[in-house]
């Protein structure tokens, strides 16, 4: 099928590149600065994290890298059961 007719696409000009680079640079610098302002730490709600007070597939909060004994989590708000589970589960290894 190599003899199919190819469409004519506009070639990229040096001006295109410079425009994209200039706009992109400014945007990304802004993002970087804005990121610092947004960085106030807080936790996910249990609903957001799909938390359940029972294990899933053998996975339980007590075996998670984010677990904080006796009943809390580094990233999920509220009281957390050691036998619970949520979507942020990360095995300790």
């Amino acid at each position, binding site marked *: 099928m190599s003899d*199919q007719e190819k469409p004519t696409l506009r070639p990229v000009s040096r001006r*295109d*590149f410079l425009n994209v680079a200039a706009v992109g640079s400014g945007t990304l610098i802004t993002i970087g600065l804005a*990121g610092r302002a947004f*960085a106030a730490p807080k936790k996910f709600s249990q609903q957001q994290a799909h938390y359940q007070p029972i294990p899933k597939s053998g996975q339980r909060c007590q075996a998670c890298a984010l677990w904080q004994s006796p009943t809390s989590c580094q990233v999920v708000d509220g009281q957390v059961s050691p036998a619970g589970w949520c979507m942020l589960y990360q095995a300790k290894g």
Partner: protein
Amino acid sequence: MTHIRIASRWSLLPAVLLFGTALVVHRPAAAVPAFAQQTGRNCAACHVGGYGPELTQFGREFKLGGYTLRMHGSVPLSAMAVASWTHTRKDQIPPPDHLNANDNLVLDQASLFVAGGIGDHFGGFAQLVTYDGVGRSWSWDNIDLRAVTSAKIFGEDSVLGVALSNNPTVQDPWNTLPAWGFPFTDTAVSQTPAAAELIDGALAGAVVGITGYGWIGHKVYVEGGGYTSPSSGALKFVGVDPTSPGSVHGLAPYGRIAYQNDVAGGTFEVGGNLLKAAIFPGRDRSTGLSDRYTDWGLDASWLKSLGKTDSLSADVRFEHEHGDLRASCALALVGDGSDIGCANYHLNEWRAAVRYNWRGKLGITASPFSISGSRNFNLYGGNGRPDSNGIMGQIDFTPWGGGNSPLGPRFNTRFGLQYTVYGKFNGMRHNFDLAGANAADNNALRVFTWIAF
């Protein structure tokens, strides 16, 4: 004597301006720091080895949850660039367009992303604009927009969603299927086998589709929907060749099922996929016939954490394709036009990748691959067989996957070295082109740098 040559004198300029320094994909790839800012988690929380696109269990949940999980306000923009130097065992004759016969240093890809969630029900990942430094062209790239809600199904906490995407398998949360499978970055500089299946990326960017899915009990995944072709004008506007591969007749149905559970202390997944498509080649409907493709596949993956920062992952995929290119035959795009059955074929493809990540920084991967199928002299040169096989090895270093970059937590980079060895290439081990070329002549060493912000 060979010379290293930059793709063009100014083609690396954006990377230089954007990132200050650049040793900066033909193959789509993604690592999106905007999501790290949104979730308050570093790249390693969602990505194995601290860099995209291989997803951890949480990364899969975040994706299937419609990218809506949010801890902080965020600016939903990211950028990425990949540059590489490639050496093939023998010079390429003729050399690739604009490039040398060997030892080419190129900007493979630079992309701008919009990525984030809106409220509790909408989110997306849009690789909005990509510059292909080898093809020297702009186009849109992977798009995955979602609407989701939580539900109880069979008493289990579940997620129901709808995904709008422009590349079948880009919406998949496992790294077994083509869009996000290993190798996560490669280049268009070196030669690759001629035979590939439709699902391997032929439709990427050339279709749009909607699929509905259920993530039932966070264990069972069921997805179904279809893809169709945008208008020729719309595809030209987004920088995609509307004639390749052509226009889909009606809808191309796509389905996917998978099951995920803990096995041997790791997260195990097994699944299957199906894609059927009838395509008017080159958008030519004059014969009333269409090319028919049926792809079905099986896949499995396993990911295990070892210690605090090490991990072992394994992915394997088998895909079968049956093709009947009756329209291409009638149009004499394949064969001489006298037999509409001139390209009735099948292909079988295997791919696997075993990867170890040490301390979340150093990764080593071995990835064997094989494609084989029926002999057809209308489709393939040489001995008429599509067979190719080999193995790719990769060593990569990701110094700041833990969000500890000196340029801030949004900046991440990976340095890597790939080596591809071919056992067979386009049908044979030796003299595959009947002009003296051997499969091993295409063995390639690639050194790459991949930056995301």
